[in-house]
């Protein structure tokens, strides 16, 4: 796990469910095939209604047509991020497109767990709503150790909730490396 995560922000609203993150008809591609799995990157966040994609302006695709990598590394959401189905393809697709972290006010439980246990991305929580204070394209820096998020241009900082229990798993990489280190398997 890096100590500093830096990159452009992609901003979304509340209740981004897993069908918006990766629509159900795309769940058929192989996850462990290098070439085919790029499709998950290609269609990451493709189910978000256009007006809600890349706030506050909207109509900004997370991944450009025909590409599978996004120029945005940090996703900023509102409350209940990742609600809906248990598909692990959701954090996987965001990771595939190049996202390293999601910052949201709260998460749905299964998405949160999948992100951590699969080692796809770091799900940071904020105490307050911040998706109205950051615009898509803003350069962002997250300091993992001090649990803060900074808007690079203005220097404005926002506190993040400490990672707590999940930090050990994230540091190990995923639940398997964690269990091995802990002598559980």
């Amino acid at each position, binding site marked *: 796990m890096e100590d500093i995560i830096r990159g452009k922000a992609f901003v979304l609203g509340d*209740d981004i469910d897993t069908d918006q993150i990766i629509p159900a008809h795309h769940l058929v591609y*192989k996850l462990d095939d290098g070439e085919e799995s790029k499709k998950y990157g290609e269609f990451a966040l493709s189910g978000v209604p256009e007006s809600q994609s890349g706030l506050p302006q909207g109509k900004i695709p997370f991944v450009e047509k025909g590409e599978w990598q996004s120029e945005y590394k940090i996703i900023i959401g509102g409350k209940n991020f990742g609600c*809906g189905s248990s598909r692990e393809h959701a954090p996987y697709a965001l990771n595939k497109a190049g996202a390293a972290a999601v910052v949201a006010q*709260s998460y749905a*439980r299964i998405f949160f767990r*999948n992100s951590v246990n699969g080692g796809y991305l770091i799900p940071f929580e904020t105490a307050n709503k911040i998706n109205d204070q950051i615009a898509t394209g803003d350069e962002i820096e997250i300091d993992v150790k001090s649990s803060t998020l900074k808007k690079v241009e203005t220097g404005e900082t926002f506190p993040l909730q400490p990672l707590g229990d999940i930090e050990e798993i994230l540091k190990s990489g995923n639940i398997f490396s964690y269990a091995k280190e802990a002598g*559980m398997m």
Partner: protein
Amino acid sequence: MGMTITEKILAQHAGRDSVSPGENIWIDVDVLMTHDVCGPGTIGVFKKNFGENANVWDKSKVVIIPDHYIFTKDTYANRNVEILRQFVKEQGLENNYFDPGSPRYKGVCHVALPEEGHTRPGEVLFGTDSHTCTAGAFGEFATGIGNTDAGFIMGAGKLWVKTPPTMRFVFEGELPPYLMAKDLILHIIGDIGCDGATYRAMEFAGDGVYGLNIEERMTLCNMVIEAGGKNGVIEPDDVTIDFVKSRTDKPFNVVRNDPGASFFVEKVYKTSEIIPTVAKPHSPDNRGVAQELSDIKITRAYIGSCTGGKMTDFKAAAAILEGQTCQVPTFIVPATTEVEKGLKETKRNGKSLYEIFEAAGAHIGPPSCAACLGGPEDTFGRLNGPEVCISTTNRNFPGRMGSKDSQVFLASPYTVAASSLTGKITDPRKYLS
């Protein structure tokens, strides 16, 4: 201090005398279920971490039920079922596998599990599907997980969980004849919001709940995930025990709340104050009532899925559609092959439910998840354009049933059937005198 049923089941499976909400514990798993969408990924994770030739931890505890993308020409989707077949053969899991195209094919996993006797009081069930919480209706701890967690269980037979605090929902008064479990759960979700139970257990009680049959209890527990809940649960009574015993000889352990168990919150509702309820687009917590939405024209009605495609759901729909004509295309999807058989064998005034639906002009599809989650373009009932659909399913997020331009209203089978007869959202009390 007393424990709740959820806390007690978790403590027993962690080999401990007690646990408290918030504690992370490792628990032993009784059943792991997966299907065609998440099975291949789970198998990949399992093999990568436990080895190409590793065996699953316990053959009798892994259940594989393909149900999502079954009747499609999509080659990727069909390949996924082939991966499951291969794995079942390799591992010798034939006893708990239900192959599409064979007489063993079942259909939607959450309905197939109890039919096949895999849901039992006091047990721990994990499944790679968020609606695995349905099985809480049998007095067990059941919840959805992702491929990584499932791959871990496949090899290790255990998993860590954070013990959830329990929210208790009590329905006072028997259910009036125009309400169904779907109305109750949509009412609760509208009340607490779609993250109102995140990380928590939701327990249902009261005579309004104990008066329900087992299928209706499944409908209640099915949708706890739509409020963010980790698991839903109902203390077993004779209804539960009789059903489970009719489906399996395996012994089980009935767990109940301790006297003095402490709840995060207890909410009490009077069933007589609830009227037919609808969730408007695009969220299950966007609550309305049918009688106030009568201006809304629909272009389609859909009755199916794990939450709305069981015999009780179709009996309710048939009570309204009998002798009438659907005014909009109406799609009927039995959850499982057993339900499909039930449609042909169950009669009302001399006619089978199947005949009643056909006579009303409804389209009847083969058992599977079908358009509940959109799926490949050729999926039965899929919303391929700007449709306005009223549906007995459990989710109405943007694009859930297909096109991002469509709108989905969720309601009980009564309300969906009544709406199909008028082409507008309709309070079923009009037809249930």
